[in-house]
């Protein structure tokens, strides 16, 4: 049976940071950790984090990802020196990883990982935690690969890693390796664990859509018959020298959902982010078909709050009395300090965490501000952008 422990901190020195987190999470039992998941802001030295983690928990598989900020039981922090960990004790899990994953080979890389993972696990895998580079990746293809191997009924949860919203680099670490275009997947096989996931954004689509007139995999080459990037930033009112740093906070693109999914989602649109552009080509987060309509969006703070409440209520209802054992939380970096001020954000996270308390205590909680989130929609594994997604592991 798996046990979960979490902690978060803002400490400059990477070794001290990981040490403090492990001590806070597990007390003097940190050497018994079997799986350590680290989310750290881009200012940390990932090699040092891993090196120290391996000293403290020599038997643990150490996995990590970079992000723009973290959320833990201790609250929210968005600086260059944040760290959050989820330490797991128990052996009902298996891990696979890869390097060199991009938009064009997302399916192949994930299929290989999935096959290896299935082969290496001695027990039935019941859920998958997936973490990949958030820059130039086709997340729909990743989901397709995992669904083919494990079946669409197995929930994929997780996120895509990021930097501090520069769209410059993101790191993924697997044991002693630090990747820039890597991915890892954890297959949990504890039969006593269940999972409930949900995501919400609270944005509203406006205006006439942009029509994808030319695309290639996850790259949009033309919008409305014009070079994609130029058309996009023009519609956003940005100057021609704008970068993704400028476009990400305001440039959420919306795809229309089917009426049935829209009811479940609480919103007519699902959002997508552009995390990179090369010349006119925009790197979309999923495969994009020509002819797809993409709406620009504006955020609606009231809707953000009300949808958040709905999501938490809905998750609590789905738990049906089961106890939350650990919560994994993926939030879009654009929903961080470039959307809300610190006070509102703390309030949002507080409202999000409180309903999952057991005996007055927050369950182990690890959250990150990244580029994208996975959560089920319409009973299918789905990739989301610009959302807050919660994954509640329960027993």
């Amino acid at each position, binding site marked *: 049976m798996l046990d979960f422990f979490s902690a978060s901190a*803002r400490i*400059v*020195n990477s070794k001290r940071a990981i040490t403090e987190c492990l001590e806070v999470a597990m007390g003097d039992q940190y050497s018994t950790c079997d799986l350590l998941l680290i989310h750290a802001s881009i*200012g940390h030295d990932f090699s040092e984090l891993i090196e120290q983690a391996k000293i403290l928990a020599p038997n643990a598989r150490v996995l990590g990802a970079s992000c723009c900020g973290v959320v833990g039981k201790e609250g929210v922090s968005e600086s260059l020196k944040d760290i959050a960990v989820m330490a797991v004790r128990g052996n009902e899990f298996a891990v696979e990883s890869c390097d060199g994953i991009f938009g064009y080979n997302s399916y192949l890389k994930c299929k290989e990982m999935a096959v290896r993972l299935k082969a290496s696990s001695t027990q039935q895998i019941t859920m998958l935690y997936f973490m990949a580079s958030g820059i130039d990746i086709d997340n729909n293809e990743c989901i397709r690969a995992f669904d083919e191997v494990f079946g669409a009924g197995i929930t994929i949860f997780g996120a895509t890693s990021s930097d501090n919203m520069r769209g410059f680099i993101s790191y993924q670490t697997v044991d002693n390796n630090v990747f820039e275009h890597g991915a890892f997947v954890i297959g949990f096989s504890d039969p006593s664990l269940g999972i409930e996931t949900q995501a919400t954004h609270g944005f509203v689509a406006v*205006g*006439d859509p942009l029509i994808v007139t030319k695309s290639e995999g996850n790259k949009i080459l033309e919008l409305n018959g014009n070079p994609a990037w130029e058309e996009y930033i023009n519609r*956003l009112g940005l100057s021609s020298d704008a970068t993704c740093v*400028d476009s990400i*906070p305001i440039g959420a693109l919306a795809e229309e959902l089917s009426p049935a999914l829209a009811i479940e989602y609480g919103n007519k649109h699902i959002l997508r982010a552009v995390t990179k552009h090369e010349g006119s080509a925009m790197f979309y987060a999923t495969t994009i078909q020509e002819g797809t309509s993409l709406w620009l969006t504006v955020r609606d703070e009231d809707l953000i709050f009300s949808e958040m409440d709905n999501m938490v209520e809905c998750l609590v209802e789905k738990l049906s009395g089961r106890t939350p054992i650990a919560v994994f939380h993926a939030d879009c970096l654009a929903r961080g300090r470039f959307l809300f001020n610190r006070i509102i954000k703390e309030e949002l996270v507080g409202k999000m965490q409180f309903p999952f308390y057991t005996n007055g205590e927050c369950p182990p909680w690890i959250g990150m501000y990244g580029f994208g989130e996975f959560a089920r929609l319409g009973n299918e594994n789905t990739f989301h952008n610009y959302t807050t997604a919660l994954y509640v592991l329960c027993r």
Partner: protein
Amino acid sequence: MHTSDQYLRLKRDFAELQLRVTQFSSVEQQLIIARDSLDQELVQYKRLNKLSAAILQATSELEFINLVTDGIIDILELESSIVFVGDSEDLNSGYFSSEGLGHYKGNQQHLISVLFNVLSTGNNIHLNKEDIQKHKELHVFSDVLGFLFKDDTKNSVLLAVGFVGVSNAKLYRNIDNRTKSIFSVFSDKIKLQFLNRNKNTKIKEQLERISQSEIELKKLSMIATNTKNGVIIANKFGEIEWVNNSFSKTSGYEMHEVLGKKPGNFLQGLETSPDAKSAISEALSKKLPIEIVLLNYDKRGREYYVQLEVIPVFNDHGEHVNFIALQKDMTDEIKYQQEILRMNSKFELVTDSSKIGIWEWDLINKSGVCNSNLRQQFGISEEVSSDLIFSIFKNSILPEDKEWVMKGIYEVIHGTALNVVQTFRIENNLTGKQSTLHCFTLAEKDTKGNLLRLIGSTFDITDSINAQQDILEKNEELKKINSELDNFVYSVSHDLRSPLVSIKGILMNVLRMGTLDEKATRFLQLAEVSANRLDDTIQEIMEYSKNARLGLTLEEVNLKALCQTIFDDLRFSVEDYFEFHYKSTISDLIFTDKYRITALLKNIIGNAVKYHRKDILNPYVELSVKHDHEALVLTVTDNGIGISEKSISRIFEMFYRATTSSVGTGLGLYICKEIVTKLNGEISAESQEGIGTTMLVRMPKLNAKDYENEIN
């Protein structure tokens, strides 16, 4: 205007409006970013304040350096930093600390010397890409922000520099005016704290001392308030100024009732020792500390004992200012002491009555004590000094016992034994009378394991030993008598049988002559029957006697062959048809006493034959043999006349006859039981009248090894 024109205009306006909405998002975002920038600046200033507070608490220069190193990165949000503090003339003499410089492959000491040359003393310097190009050693950085500060009074320098590396520059904010202004405040604070660091240390020490004093004061106050002992603080005249809760609880007086009063005036009473009172008065008048046990009276007049400690308190000038009195409630302790004394006297009474001698030998002071019983046992008069007790004890032991008794006691002294229990003989020092004592000796040690004293008890068992001896002697006598009786019985039986056999022979011959008339023949036949019965009885008495007299003789016996012989003997004594069966699940060869097993089986099988039913066609007896775990089990079953329920429990009694038929002597089954008992076994019977009887014999299974042991 045409409708189509209106439509087109409206559509154009709508598109423009939507464009404005999205573009408004962009403007709004700029505002959010500006707001975040201000918010971030506030956060940075807060972090700076926190750093200043932490530096004030720093206990060493190294800690100061480490805090500044972290502060540069945390507050200014730069990638890496280096801080040096040392002698301005000798860069090798100081300390430095760096953080996040993993990507800098050069020597950090060398980097410090380069920075010394680049940064001019006093000012904050920002080196941008162009400036950095001039210094080859700094090419890995895209931004360098730092200062070099000299403390002329101490001839020491502080170098504090933050960097952003070229490779990660895209991840870091540009060094803009905002960063520079924060850095300016940062550097001012750090420089000031660097200058005042000695002063800070002194302030910190003073603060710590004050804090320590406050803690001590709090501790003392807590102790005085919460201690279970009563505390009284009185002025120099002995008038109460403060009492704690424990005092009120013990005495029943609240603080307001006793303020200004002298404790002796209301706590002491009739039974309080006058000596104790005057000792306290004298100590108080001389302003000396005193410790004494005292009887006090509470508010309701009840007695309680206290251990009182009065301490005079003097100020820094040596003037007497207060008395502090601590009262420990001793009532329970004194009650316990009294109870212990009472128990002790009872114990002494018990030991006196039970004639147990108690002795104790102090190994350190070489002196001993003993109770009156011991003095009586050893003949130690009351006048004998305590240092001689042990030597009298030792010398009273009879010479033949003394060596091993003392050896045992020395084992206790040397710690090789915890205690020793011995029985030995002594000669009374005064009367010369010998007696036997049962003695228990143990050692008492201190907490470190050092031997303190020997403690022992002695109990005179002379009478008991004598009684035991009497019993042993009488036992031996009894055995002898029994043996003689057995021999006598055997001899008599044997001697009686010889003439009887002659009588039987004569009777048989006379009867065979055939010359007697019918009446004489009848009488002689009756005489023959009686003679036979007498012979059977004598033979059985001899058998019994033989079983009692002789020891076991184990040998290998072929049980099947033995049974066959018994069957053959009996086959001819029975006039009717009779079946004999032998069943065995074990080897025919067993180890046992041949004489006894033969007698046993002869009796049991013989009974089956004797008491068979004449009204059935297939009378039989069956002997079955098996092993059951470690037992040899012999079962003899017949379909004879059986034994009545009222008789079955008595059949193994001597001379008990379950039937009135003339054939039994009443000794057969009694002998069987004796034999089985001798063989360490058990015999039992089950029977139903008219159906038959089963005799069950269980004996230990013996093997060749038992036989060998027997031989040896």
